[in-house]
């Protein structure tokens, strides 16, 4: 190797480092990553305290990684490299047949499961109205045949059995309906939620349990509101080579009204008007939030059937696409998200003259949720 060649190699290396150093310095920091659906770390404040505790360094490291120039491109390159190397998963997401991305279902923490089932039982004990309870099996269970052969994946049906046996609520199964229709698009391929179609089967199961006659699917007109939906699993997988999902809705919005109860900055309760379908979200990454406008602590949906009973739903985000179907039967559907709602659900039920309650979670959310403790109070 000649001296000139060595200079070239050395310069190449230094230029590579300097190029990205300069690009990182020049590129403006992003507040939020749409693709990853989360806020990105910002330059941490420097103080003697944060330096001594090492907090500054830890935050700075996250900041550099989060704000690295061309982050999304690098992440996509890494997942493509993984595929090229013969991997069938990236960041805990399996590359499945039919362009489907499925998050691995990890073996649940037994104590958390037992505790959460107990909290539901406590809730039932405090109540003199009927409490229905079901867990929604997800892609990792219903679409298990799409997973790579032999891919490790904990059993959701074992968990459903456990819940059925140990609960004192009126258990109903969502599983058979979804399983029977597993060849239809009951889940999104790139998002962890069920589709409106999947939610319809969930609705049919619930209606059956409550003694209601579900509206036949054929009576609805399916409307596709988006053909370009890339969901949360798409984000976490880093995979960029699958086709987007469609979002369909079935139930017309007419005659429904949605009020979200929240607090302003001074802690005063305020009411915010929402819609069954907020199409403004369709222009954003988080398109699933079009159902009821995404997360909320407490929401009330008023249906066209003003004579119907009142329902309380203790739920996760899967219920956002279920609620449209329920509006046919209930005058009011009260939605409580225990991640944000910390008041007594029992008192709420008394105050508002609720006729029946449903506790409905997806299996992965139920076995990891740490907020069900609020139900028992």
């Amino acid at each position, binding site marked *: 190797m000649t001296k000139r060649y060595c200079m070239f190699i050395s310069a190449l*290396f230094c230029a590579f480092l300097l190029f*990205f150093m300069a690009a*990182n310095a020049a590129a403006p920091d992003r507040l939020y990553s749409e693709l990853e659906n989360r806020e990105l770390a910002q330059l941490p404040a420097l103080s003697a305290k944060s330096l001594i505790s*090492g907090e500054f360094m830890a935050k700075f490291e996250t900041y*550099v*990684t989060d704000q690295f120039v061309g982050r999304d491109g690098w992440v996509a390159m890494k997942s493509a490299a993984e595929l090229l*190397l*013969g991997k069938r998963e990236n*960041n805990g997401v399996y590359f499945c047949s039919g362009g489907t991305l499925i998050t691995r279902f990890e073996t649940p923490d037994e104590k958390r499961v037992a505790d959460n089932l107990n909290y539901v039982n406590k809730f039932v004990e405090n109540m003199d109205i009927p409490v229905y309870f079901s867990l929604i099996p997800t892609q990792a269970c219903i679409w298990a045949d799409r997973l790579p052969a032999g891919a*490790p994946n904990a059993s959701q049906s074992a968990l459903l059995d456990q819940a059925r046996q140990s609960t004192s609520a009126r258990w109903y199964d969502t599983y058979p309906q979804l399983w029977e229709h597993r060849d239809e698009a009951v889940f999104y391929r790139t998002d962890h939620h069920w589709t409106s179609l999947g939610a319809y089967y969930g609705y049919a199961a619930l209606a059956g349990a409550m003694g209601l006659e579900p509206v036949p699917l054929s009576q609805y007109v399916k409307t596709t509101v988006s053909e370009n939906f890339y969901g949360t699993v798409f984000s976490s997988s880093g995979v960029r080579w699958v086709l987007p999902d469609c979002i369909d809705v079935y139930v017309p919005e007419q005659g429904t009204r949605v009020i979200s109860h929240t607090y302003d900055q001074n802690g005063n309760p305020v009411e915010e008007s929402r819609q069954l379908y907020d199409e403004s979200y369709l222009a954003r990454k988080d398109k699933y939030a079009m159902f009821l406008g995404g997360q909320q602590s407490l929401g009330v949906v008023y249906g066209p059937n003003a004579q119907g009973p009142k329902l309380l739903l203790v739920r996760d985000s899967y219920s956002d696409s279920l609620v449209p179907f329920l509006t046919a039967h209930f005058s009011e559907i009260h939605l409580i998200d225990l991640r944000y709602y910390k008041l007594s659900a029992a008192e709420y039920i008394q105050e508002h003259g609720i006729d029946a309650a449903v506790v409905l979670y997806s299996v992965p959310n139920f076995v990891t949720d740490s907020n069900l403790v609020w139900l028992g109070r």
Partner: protein
Amino acid sequence: MVFSSLYFLFLYLPIVLFAYYIAPLRWRNGVLLVLNLIFYAWGEPVYILIMFASIAIDYTHGMLVERYKSRNNDKGARLAVASSVVFNLALLFFFKYWDFVAGSLAAAGLGFMPKLGLRLPIGISFYTFQTMSYTIDVYRGNARVQKSIVNFGTFVTLFPQLIAGPIIKYKDLGDQIDSRTHTVEQFASGVQIFVVGLAKKVLLANNIGMLWDAWKAVPAGELTTAGAWLGAAAFSFQIYFDFSGYSDMAVGLGRMLGFEFMRNFDYPYISRSITEFWRRWHISLGTWFREYMYIPMGGNRVSRPRLFFNLLAVWAATGIWHGASWNFLLWGLYFAVLLILEKAFLLRWLERAPSVVRRVYTLLLVVVSWAIFAVEDLGRLGIYLKAMFGGAEGGLTGGAVEYYFFSYLPILAIAAVASTPLAAALWKRLPERPMKVLLPFLLLAGLICSTAYLVDATYNPFLYFRF
């Protein structure tokens, strides 16, 4: 700070190279000392005080040894050496082994030592060994005393080898600290070694590490024999590419700054005996124990029983150096027994066996040793080893073994080839022209792929902070 991180590569390193090379020659050690201290303080803002104390005390001890020696006061010089060794070992004991000893005594019903719950200062196992070597080398006359505290501080804190070795003895580095030349040829070769090391760590070690992580958590009831071997093999690759990748990066960075460090790994997995394995694995640690413990104890030139005792003692120390836990001691003693057997008769037998038998023999024993190393809980270790040798509750194979084996097959194959000198030999046989054309592309590919994996760094653990 770790080398395999974005802020090191794209912030700290360019600043270091810039500041170092614009500084006039005589200021370079001073500049380097400041940069080293920033490097260390980044990870240890408080424990850096221990580093300062260590520098001051070992510097003073070196001066004391020199003074006594110049007055022909051997007893004084020996006392100073002993004092330095005691200080360094006490430091190491206090931070690394106190809780382990306290816990073990308490378990035996002797709970007089309270548990302190102190965090282990990064790299303390490495720098205490280096500073110990300094006073000993000065006493033995193998190195001249370092009169400049700046130069001595630069030696102790030299960032390329500060937190994960190689463990550089003062006698090998002292002259380079005092004066060294900087050539572009050396810089360019440093770049190549550094990028190879980076790729080994980020692309191979982290990737195969995920296979081991998937395996180590498998409940006893689901553990299969094939799975246990797959897991142990994955860890064997992970620890080799992690550690040797890190050493390569250290050697590369050293060269960029004009230093020449010793080679720490020499394709250990092609060894044909355990004796040979330890001449090729973590060479700087092996030679340290050899020069400062094994030979002073009499080395080979003693009676058989004494030789075996020496080997047991040295390997018990080597084992426990790797971490304050019983499994590391067990791991060291496992090698002691193997080395004793080899010295007693096995080596003579092996010499007559075909190479392939010798390699398989060595590899199998080494993979088993990594299982002992990797599984810290002794109860779990028992289950794991039993599973490896046919007593698995999950049977011979099944469950996710096949999935993991086939998903990791390409990486395992790459790792297996990369563990041999094959690629390096092919590279050297390449004519100069294609080599010159290929090199920049390979370097860029290594840098770009590593950057992509680091940006997606949901997974970038560093194994050596425990040492």
